[in-house]
Every structure is written in structure tokens, then in C-alpha cells.
């Protein structure tokens, strides 16, 4: 029993949160429509958190994801303004993510700077670049092609729910796809297993002939691309782009990964657990807002709930190994 609780304590806690809202908001929370809403609200965070998991598996961080997301958004928007077609502009924005990610990778794995420092510095650089590209302005309105902003409003028709047509939002589909790709890569390919080996003991991996440098570099590139995709999703959702809009994603994504780590057997980052963390954060925001909880209290509560989950998991783990 107590072993069960230790292993699944966090999961039970997360389920408890959902049950709580379901009881407190009987008519509105547990509806298909609300969950579709939540899925769309968290979709950008889910993408960033999923790709953040890729670097965190290696024990690294990427603090630049937020500013990379902002940068990708404004790059696409500026190219729209210059008359590029939507696919070309999106490709270019994702290309910027790839280059930015590769640059992070070179700093961390070739030059050997601590990821925390390297990506802290590139955070500044990419954010400055976003301001330069956009001239500090928000780009919106007629400058953003309808095909681009319509994407965020489209989705897969699900038939009618409560008499009104419902769709499975396109952004949620993208988030699911990215999560699925990350899951396959991390859990089912030797590439992913090598990343876990690097995270578990980089020295052992190096001694075993794992090409640590190349793998770390590529993982950062992967994360850069993911961050760019999230930035584009964001821009499509708000039908505009400004040079700071993605910045908040970074800390929240890291929080989601850590929250997920409380769910896994030995505290490793795993992408499905990360997704669970993202959902919990999304549910908290949605549920507390529906209960008209003051925004500030909401912030304190979210922090406190993260702390409780992580403490419970830390204490459980210590109980586990302490005996």
C-alpha cells in the first residue's frame, strides 16, 4: 500500500485535482467541449515541454526555447509582410529554429559551455534578434494571411456536441503529433536510448563509444525546431506576432517536465509524464479560472501544488532508498 502510494502518489494527486474540479464544477468541467478547449490552450506548452524533455533526458536545459518561439513567430510574420507564401515563410521560420538549436548544440557540446549558461546567453541573443527583426513591433491584422490564422481555428470535425458542432482543434493535433514523435524517438529508438545513457552517466556513455558530442548537438537542434513550431502555433492562435510572446513558455515548460518527473519510477524525464504535467498545469489554470479564483491566488496555488507534488515524490523516494 505505502509502496503503491509512493510509486503512484503523484499520479493519484493529479487525478485528485481533476476529480476536485469535476465535483466543484459539475456542469461545465467534465464536458467534452471544455476538454477540447483545454487541449487547445495547452497545445503550445505541450510542444515546448515535449522537446524540452529531449534535452533534459541528457541532463541538459534549454532556456532559449521561449525566445526562440518568439523569434520564429516574428520571422514568419515579417516574411508574410514581405509577400512570402505561407509555406515558404513557415519553412524559413522553422529553419531559424533549426539554426538556433544547432547553435545551442555547438556551444554546449562542441565548445563545452554549461547548457544553463549557453542557453541563457542565447536567450538574450534570440530575444534581441526577435526585436531587431520585428523592429520591436507587434505584427498583426492584414499582415497575417488568413490561411495562417485560420489554421488555429480549424480542426477535425467531431460531429455535434450539445447540439453545436465541435472540432478537435488543429493545434491539439499538432501537439499530439509532436508528443508522439518525441515518444517514439526517446523510447523506441537507439538514438533516444543513447540520450538517456548520456543523461544517466555521460562519462560511461563516452567510455562506451557513444558519440556524445554529435548526439547532444542534434538533440539541441531538435529542441530548437520544436520551439519554432510552438512559436508558429502561438502566432497562428493569436493571429499576430510580437517579439516577446513566447517568452513565458520556457519556465512553464521546465516546470511541466519536472512535474512529470515526479511520476516516473526513477525520476527520469519521460515525454508522456511531461504531457501529464502539462495537462495538470492546464487543468489548474482552466479550473481555477472557472471557479473565479483571483489570478494572484491562482499563481500561488499553482506554485504550491507543484511544490506539494515534488515534495511528496522526493520524500517517497527517500523512504524508498533510505531503507
Amino acid at each position: 500500500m505505502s509502496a503503491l502510494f509512493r510509486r503512484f502518489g503523484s499520479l493519484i494527486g493529479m487525478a485528485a485535482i481533476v476529480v476536485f474540479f469535476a465535483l466543484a464544477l459539475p456542469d461545465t468541467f467534465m464536458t467534452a467541449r471544455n476538454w477540447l478547449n483545454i487541449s487547445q490552450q495547452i497545445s503550445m506548452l505541450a510542444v515546448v515541454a515535449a522537446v524540452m524533455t529531449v534535452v533534459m533526458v541528457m541532463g541538459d536545459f534549454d532556456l532559449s526555447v521561449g525566445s526562440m518561439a518568439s523569434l520564429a513567430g516574428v520571422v514568419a510574420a515579417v516574411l508574410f509582410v514581405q509577400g512570402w507564401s505561407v509555406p515558404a515563410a513557415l519553412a524559413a521560420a522553422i529553419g531559424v529554429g533549426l539554426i538556433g538549436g544547432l547553435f545551442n548544440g555547438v556551444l554546449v557540446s562542441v565548445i563545452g559551455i554549461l547548457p544553463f549558461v549557453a542557453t541563457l546567453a542565447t536567450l538574450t541573443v534570440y530575444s534581441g534578434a526577435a526585436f531587431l527583426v520585428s523592429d520591436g513591433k507587434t505584427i498583426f491584422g492584414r499582415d497575417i494571411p488568413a490561411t495562417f490564422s485560420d489554421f488555429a481555428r480549424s480542426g477535425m470535425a467531431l460531429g455535434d456536441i450539445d447540439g453545436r458542432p465541435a472540432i478537435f482543434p488543429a493545434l491539439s493535433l499538432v501537439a499530439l503529433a509532436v508528443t508522439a514523435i518525441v515518444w517514439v524517438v526517446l523510447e523506441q529508438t537507439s538514438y533516444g536510448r543513447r540520450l538517456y545513457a548520456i543523461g544517466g552517466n555521460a562519462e560511461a556513455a563516452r567510455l562506451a563509444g557513444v558519440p556524445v558530442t554529435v548526439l547532444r548537438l542534434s538533440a539541441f537542434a531538435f529542441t530548437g525546431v520544436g520551439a519554432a513550431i510552438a512559436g508558429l502555433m502561438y502566432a497562428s492562435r493569436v493571429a499576430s506576432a510580437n517579439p516577446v510572446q513566447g517568452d513565458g513558455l520556457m519556465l512553464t515548460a521546465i516546470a511541466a517536465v519536472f512535474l512529470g518527473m515526479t511520476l516516473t519510477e526513477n525520476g527520469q524525464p519521460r515525454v508522456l509524464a511531461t504531457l501529464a504535467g502539462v495537462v495538470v498545469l492546464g487543468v489548474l489554470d482552466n479550473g481555477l479560472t472557472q471557479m473565479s479564483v483571483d489570478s494572484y491566488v491562482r499563481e500561488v496555488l499553482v506554485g504550491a501544488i507543484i511544490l506539494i507534488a515534488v515534495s511528496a515524490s522526493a520524500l517517497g523516494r527517500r523512504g524508498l532508498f533510505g531503507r
Partner: protein
Amino acid sequence: TPYLAQPGTQFYVEAFEGRAAELGWDVNVIDTGGDVAAVISRIEDVVTQGVDAIVINVDPAQVGAGLQAAADAGVPVVGMDAGSDPLLVANVTSNGYAMAVETSVYVANRIGGAGNVVMFTFDPFPPVQVRGVIADAVFANYPDITVLDRITPDVSDGGIADSRAQMEAILAANPEAGSISAVWAAWDQPALGALQAIEAAGREGEGIVITGIDANPQARDAIAQGGNFEASVAQDFAGIGATAADTVARILAGEDIVASVIYVPTVLITSANVTE
């Protein structure tokens, strides 16, 4: 300015730069990304550099140390939508009180003085905080208007996305048609977020009235489409910028500025006049 990413700020900066170019000035626009103490530091730096005049777009009470440094060195400082302060030669701005009155009264009239209103406010920024206070007062005068929720969205991304998520949650919590009569927003981004949420929920037919302030182009588009977003107040950003530049020119020409607060007129924008 700490707030260059805000659309309004961009307009008066541009208008200011336009007028400055005509006058042949060198303009250095400094954005501190929300950090007020850094504004003081940068004012000190440009005073050291020896500029002719400084224009600020920040609450002067918070940058008193910098203003003092400028005053000590004899560099005149003009406020552009900043606030009044003895150390400012002049402040050029819109009448924030009047704008909030216009939109909140518009809301009250449209819903017939009765119903549930959702407010989006932002108190950390004094000029916007004032709008919230005025709207509170207006709604409090109507006994049948209930403020359902007073939300402070996360503005680190400009405000649309978080406002939308919050509005979605409120819509989910109030599913019956007619349970929300209006959304009053202290500036346009939350209004746009709320509009997106209402449209995405398929509830645009309920007659929920949305108003914003600033009348930025995205908001004008929305008003022109004749949907729920009905009104906003246009500040004459370009006018503020240009007037600020003119004021600086007058100071540099040696003129004494008597009226230290200079209001630039505002206009209520509805579908009737949006295309003008």
C-alpha cells in the same frame, strides 16, 4: 520606455521619429524591456552623453532619480503619455479618465443597465489601473450590473493568449446563453482574446458586448466586421508623438511651457466611424 512592444507605444514613437526627422534631429529610442530601474540608468547614461532633450514614456514618479540627474545637468525632459511631475517640463497624453468613462458607459447603455460583466484590467501599470477604477465606479452606479469577474491577464506575451484562455474558462463556467452580457477590457488585447474565445465557443450569437480601449488596427478590423467587439476608444497616438516632438522643439527654441499637461483628443470608435 520600458513598454515598446505595446502597439500604442509604437505609434507615438513612430510619429515622434517622423517629426524629428523633419526637424533633423538624432533620435535614440531606448527600450528597457519592462525594467523601470534600467530606465533611470539609461537616463543617467544619456545625460552623461550630453543629449539635448529626453522624452520618457514611464511613470515619472518611479524614475525620479533619473529626472533629478537630468535636471541637475540642465537637460529638459518631456513626458509622452507618462504622468505629471514637477521635474517634467510637460506631459503629452490622452485623457485616460475620459476614455474609461466612454467605454464603460457604452457597455452599460448597450446592455440596458442590467447584466453580468466580465472586466479585464491591469493594475500594475498606473495609466491602465486608472481606467479600471473609473469603470468600477461607472458599473457600481448601475444596481443591476454585476461584475462577474475582474481578471488580470498575464501580459508577458502581449495579453491576447492568456485573456483568451481565461475567457474560455469563464464561458465554460457560465454555459447558459445570456449569462454573460458584456466584456469590458481596459485595453484592446484582452478584448480581442475574449472575442476569439466567444467565437471559438460558438457563442457569438448571444449578443455579448465587447469593448476595448486604444482602437489598434486589429481591434478596428474586429469592429468593422460587426461582431461582438463593438467599441473602442482611439487615442491619437500619432498626435501624442508629434505633439511631444513639437513640445521638445518649443523648449529647445527657448519657449516657456505653461500648461504642463497637454491632452490630445480621443475618439470613440464604433462600426459607424471605424472606416474613417
